């Protein structure tokens, strides 16, 4: 048995053992995830050394190249981390037995997807993953969540159906081909297949307009689910597949229009989602809108078709999974004690939970693209890719660049609001006794935050040269000049100076006065100032207000439109078919009645009448015989 099968099968077996044996449950689950991670690491190192490894089992064909080895490693890592996190986080959860089993299954099947090296294998594993995700959602949702559940199932199911349809189209025209042929995108069938597959990838990763299931489930799912499915796994899989399809299976550079299609989707996703995130008052929902927004960068980067942009997109995918997972997890830690995710009710928790706060802050800065953290570096690579479009003569690059940069700014703004509302500001009285969470809760998020810093400072030697550049099929040329280490040193210097200035200020005695509003002094508890009203003027801005109204009402939600359209069509069809059936029925009734009354006249009970009919028949027969 090679490590390929073990990687997939062992988590399933250990998960099943854990499902059966109650007293060693957590140990078995943990063992399964660890073994999965172990084999993933082994495969990763094997894939670094050799070129391509293939293995065939019947129609299944597994193979690992440098890209899939790298993605595989992170899928296993995230499965392990989320498992560690949720063992503590969901300790009192009723259905945790099934929850963990599904978690392990999803981890191993995702590994199968990444390892798949021909169409059939990919289709089968993708289908299995879809059904597993349904099961997973079913076991993780809270009460009153049928709508969200149905919505996610609907969007994911429909888009996965389209994806499989796209692969099926390919299968019909090319057969069971491996995924690295670089087919050129210039006949209609291939373009159709490509668009269908990208729709599946978009829904998985959460690009607009197929994003709406992510904010919807964020209201009803625990933080660990959110961190696992939309934040890490689906980004890895969706973007991995998009990349694989765009530059391995097909060659995106052969079709100019499709590149623009990807970039437009990316830009709109960035802007629309970040604008929606700006006005949210619920931490999980806000984060989920950011999870959507960040996908836009990756799609934009892949769409550029410029090596540096694609590399940046891949790097951004990695970074995004790191900091977004960390953000979800830390928010989950806050929720673990406070049972609250509405940001107006929170505040001032930085003192109580310093480790959580640190992880959150680092991740928030990373997502906002603050140098020298990793988010900045990957975004910068994407910008470079977009700017490079200028050389190709694609003048739309300006719009894309604007959208991406503006989105980044707005991200920072919305995270200022979130950080302030949760961790800074006044602390409500009931949260005074809150303590830091357990090791198993803060360890995953802290590890991820640490990786954010590490990948930021040592961006070029560690992640780029080690992971990203070898994974891509083309040679990457650096554009521009950036020294992360140097920048880090400079920034540390700046922070040091700032700290000195702060201390200078802190030495001086601060004068405390009572707060007056409208001539009345406020009491202590009334002074709590929440950040939920940040940016509310944006909401009322003349141009944007309509858009936000629509957005809140779900007008940008593809699902709603689809639901309405389908409802209308079904109603129409019902009416039309009813009408047609009615007409057919009436016609049949008319004819049968006419014919019946005619026959009734013959059914007189008089012998001669029957004989007349018989003899008419005989006459006809005679006619035929004579003629």
């Amino acid at each position: 048995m090679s490590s390929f099968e073990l990687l997939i099968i062992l988590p399933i077996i250990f998960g099943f053992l854990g499902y059966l044996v109650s007293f060693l449950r957590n140990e078995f689950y943990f063992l399964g995830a660890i073994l999965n991670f172990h084999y993933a690491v082994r495969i990763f190192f094997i894939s670094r050394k050799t070129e391509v490894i293939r293995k065939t089992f019947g129609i299944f064909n597994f193979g690992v190249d440098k890209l899939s080895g790298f993605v595989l490693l992170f899928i296993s890592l995230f499965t392990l981390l989320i498992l560690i996190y949720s063992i503590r986080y969901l300790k009192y959860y009723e259905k945790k037995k099934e929850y963990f089993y599904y978690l392990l299954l999803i981890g191993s099947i995702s590994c199968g997807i990444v390892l798949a090296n021909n169409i059939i294998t990919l289709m089968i594993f993708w289908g299995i993953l879809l059904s597993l995700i349904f099961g997973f959602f079913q076991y993780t949702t809270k009460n009153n969540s049928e709508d969200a559940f149905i919505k996610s199932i609907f969007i994911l199911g429909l888009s996965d159906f389209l994806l499989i349809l796209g692969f099926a189209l390919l299968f019909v025209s090319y057969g069971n081909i491996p995924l690295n042929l670089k087919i050129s995108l210039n006949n209609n069938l291939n373009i159709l297949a490509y668009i269908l597959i990208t729709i599946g990838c978009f829904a998985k990763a959460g690009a607009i307009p197929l994003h709406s299931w992510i904010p919807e489930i964020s209201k009803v799912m625990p933080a660990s689910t959110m961190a696992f499915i939309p934040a890490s796994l689906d980004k890895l899989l969706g973007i991995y597949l998009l990349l694989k399809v765009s530059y391995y299976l097909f060659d995106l550079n052969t079709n100019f229009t499709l590149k623009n299609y990807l970039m437009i989707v990316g830009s709109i996703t960035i802007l629309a989602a970040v604008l929606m995130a700006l006005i949210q008052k619920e931490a999980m929902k806000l984060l989920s809108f950011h999870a959507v927004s960040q996908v836009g960068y990756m799609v934009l980067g892949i769409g550029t078709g410029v090596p540096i942009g694609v590399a940046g997109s891949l790097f951004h995918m990695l970074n995004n999974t790191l900091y977004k997972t960390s953000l979800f997890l830390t928010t989950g830690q806050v929720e673990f004690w406070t049972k609250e995710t509405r940001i107006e009710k929170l505040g001032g928790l930085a003192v109580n939970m310093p480790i959580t706060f640190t992880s959150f802050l680092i991740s928030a800065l990373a997502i906002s693209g603050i140098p020298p953290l990793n988010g900045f570096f990957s975004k910068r690579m994407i910008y470079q890719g977009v700017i490079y479009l200028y050389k190709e003569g694609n003048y739309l690059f300006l719009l894309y660049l604007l959208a991406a940069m503006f989105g980044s700014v707005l991200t920072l703004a919305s995270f200022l609001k979130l950080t302030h509302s949760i961790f800074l500001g006044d602390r409500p009285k009931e949260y005074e006794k809150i303590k830091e969470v357990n090791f198993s809760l803060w360890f995953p998020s802290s590890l991820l935050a640490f990786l954010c810093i590490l990948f930021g400072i040592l961006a070029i030697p560690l992640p780029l040269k080690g992971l990203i550049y070898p994974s891509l099929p083309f040679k990457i040329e650096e554009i521009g000049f950036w020294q992360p280490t140097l920048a880090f040193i400079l920034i540390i210097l700046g922070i040091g100076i700032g700290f000195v200035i702060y201390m200078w200020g802190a030495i001086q005695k601060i004068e405390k006065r009572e707060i007056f509003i409208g001539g009345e002094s406020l009491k202590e508890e009334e002074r709590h100032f929440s950040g939920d009203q940040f940016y509310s003027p944006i909401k009322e801005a003349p141009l944007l207000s309509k858009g936000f109204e629509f957005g809140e009402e779900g007008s940008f939600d593809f699902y709603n439109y689809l639901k309405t359209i389908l409802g209308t069509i079904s109603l129409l069809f019902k009416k039309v078919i009813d009408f047609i059936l009615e007409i057919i029925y009436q016609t049949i009734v008319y004819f049968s009645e006419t014919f019946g009354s005619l026959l009734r006249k013959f059914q007189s009970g008089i012998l001669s009448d029957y004989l007349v009919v018989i003899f008419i028949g005989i006459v006809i027969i005679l006619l035929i015989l004579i003629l």
Partner: protein
Amino acid sequence: MIELYILLIASIGAGIVAVEIKDLLASAISLGIVGFSVAIIFILVQAPDLAIVQIVVEVLTVIIFVAVILKTTHIDTTLENKMEVRDYLTKGVFVIFGIFFLIFSISALKELPEFGKPIMKIASHYLAKGFEEIKAANQVAAVILDFRGYDTLGEATVLFTSVIGVLTILRKIGKKK
């Protein structure tokens, strides 16, 4: 063979009378005329067996008809009724059918061997064998009971069935009394 034609025409005339006459007893007698004409024709065409049976059966038929007519009514009241559309229709259909049937039968009869000259392919075989092997003088009996015993058995069954039918239909009244 002038007798044959006279008898045939007589039987046709008697048939028309039997069908059209108002008194049912008279029509039964006319039917008897037809039957006896047929019996005489059987003698003329060298079929004495048939003639014997036909005569006796005709007697019985007339007796039964008369018995029934005496028990029911002997005036055909339906002839007095006005003609309806339906009657015209049936008559029209009959006329059409009759014309077609005549045309068809004429064209079919042309295929038959001429009157008085049958082919007798199987019959010659039967005639030879019936005398030498079965040693029967009456070849009709030989055909009925030896060569074609199955047919006779079937016909006997039909007769049996019809007798049972008559008895079942009519016996119920006797039981009620």
